[in-house]
């Protein structure tokens, strides 16, 4: 093998670089975050699986519709109570803690939604 003084360190750097996640995590698959669910309400505006997958799209749609038409009506009734298209008045009513609900998964998956650029996050 020629130039092994350059090629072997190069290969070692390459392998260390590719396997970076292995060294970084210290062989520890941390626990999956558990967002804290509201205690008194058991139902959301959509089924759980849909909320999990599509809540950001729903919120985005609500924002556009409300801003453009001003119409907040959203004909969903849960336990006889009607809910409107609103982050602060619908979502945050039950999921009152941003830190214990939103942030748990968002921090884990490194998602930084820009809701809070305009909305005031609840004081916690």
């Amino acid at each position: 093998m020629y130039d092994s003084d350059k090629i072997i360190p190069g290969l070692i750097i390459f392998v260390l670089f590719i396997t970076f996640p292995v060294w970084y995590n210290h062989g520890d698959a941390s626990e999956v975050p558990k967002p804290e669910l509201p205690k008194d309400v058991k139902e959301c505006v959509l089924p759980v699986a849909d909320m999990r997958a599509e809540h950001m799209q729903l919120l985005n749609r609500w924002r556009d519709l409300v801003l453009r038409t001003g119409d907040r009506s959203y004909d969903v009734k849960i336990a006889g109570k009607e809910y409107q298209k609103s982050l602060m008045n619908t979502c945050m009513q039950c999921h009152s803690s941003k830190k214990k609900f939103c942030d748990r998964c968002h921090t884990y998956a490194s998602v930084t939604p820009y809701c809070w650029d305009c909305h005031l996050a609840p004081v916690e």
Partner: protein
Amino acid sequence: MKYTFPLAAVIALVLIAWIGAQIPGMQYLFGVAIPYLAMALFLGGFCYRVVQWAKSPVPFRIPTTCGQEYSLPWIKQDKLESPVNASQVVARMALEILLFRSLWRNTKASVYDGPKLTYESSKWLWLFGILFHYSFLMIVLRHMRLFLDPVPGFVKALEFGDGILQIGAPTMYLTDATILLALVLLFGRRLINRQVRYISLANDYFPLFLIFAIATTGILMRFFLRTDVDIVAIKRLAVGLVTFQPSITTDIGAIFYVHLFLVSTLLAYFPFSKLMHMGGVFLSPTRNLPNNSRMVRHINPWNPDIKPHSYASYEDEFREDMVEQGIPVEKELPKKADD
């Protein structure tokens, strides 16, 4: 045709993962076993190829120079085009690896009536190439958010920059658009340019289609086919894979397994394909050798060890035979004692 077979192969790979991932119990094959196997093939194959290259001797200096070599003091040397020492070579290689400098010099030859041959600068390949490679790099680094826990700041910064337009939710990434655009342009170049189409082979089209399919499934998964795409479960699996504690906690949509299977295919295919130019660019002797053959004596490594043989020692060896044959000698044979 040369592009139908690779296209059919990629479609077959998509179907294998799409159908396979829906069979109960196969999730561990597509989510754990195949990614590990692919990564092992990638690392092992990559190192094997580089070591094989390193074993091939480069008996003489073969840098491609495109400028004035080092000469007399009043003649200006072109330090990048004809480097003579390590630092000049490092500068040349860095520009090659980071900015694809030799593609910047690409020319297009055309024949006009006359006949008249002209060469003109053609920077399209450079543009498409740099668009593709930097998009891909950004995408790979951005994916580290799924493998690293906690997510380091540089990944967050890249994500923020890539999603800076804040279009839609989840935020659209600029690199998603640029990588697809670059792939379409690179593929179009192979179709439209007659000379390039002539020399394009199935193994040129296959990576293009494969990476296109990877990007497409990724985009579909992020924006359109979100059913059962639980990012927390996906990250748990990804972190599990790199910490050797893989576990699939919930049902993840088939589109995820298609994406993962195509990436595994790319990793496994990488060392045995032209994609090895990733390692090869560092080892190309036409770029990484200094043009110093007039300053340093380079000896062919497999030269046999031949001792110098002067005429005087030659005559010493054969003097008796030479005298016998009547060949003139510089030093006569010693007088015999009995004469």
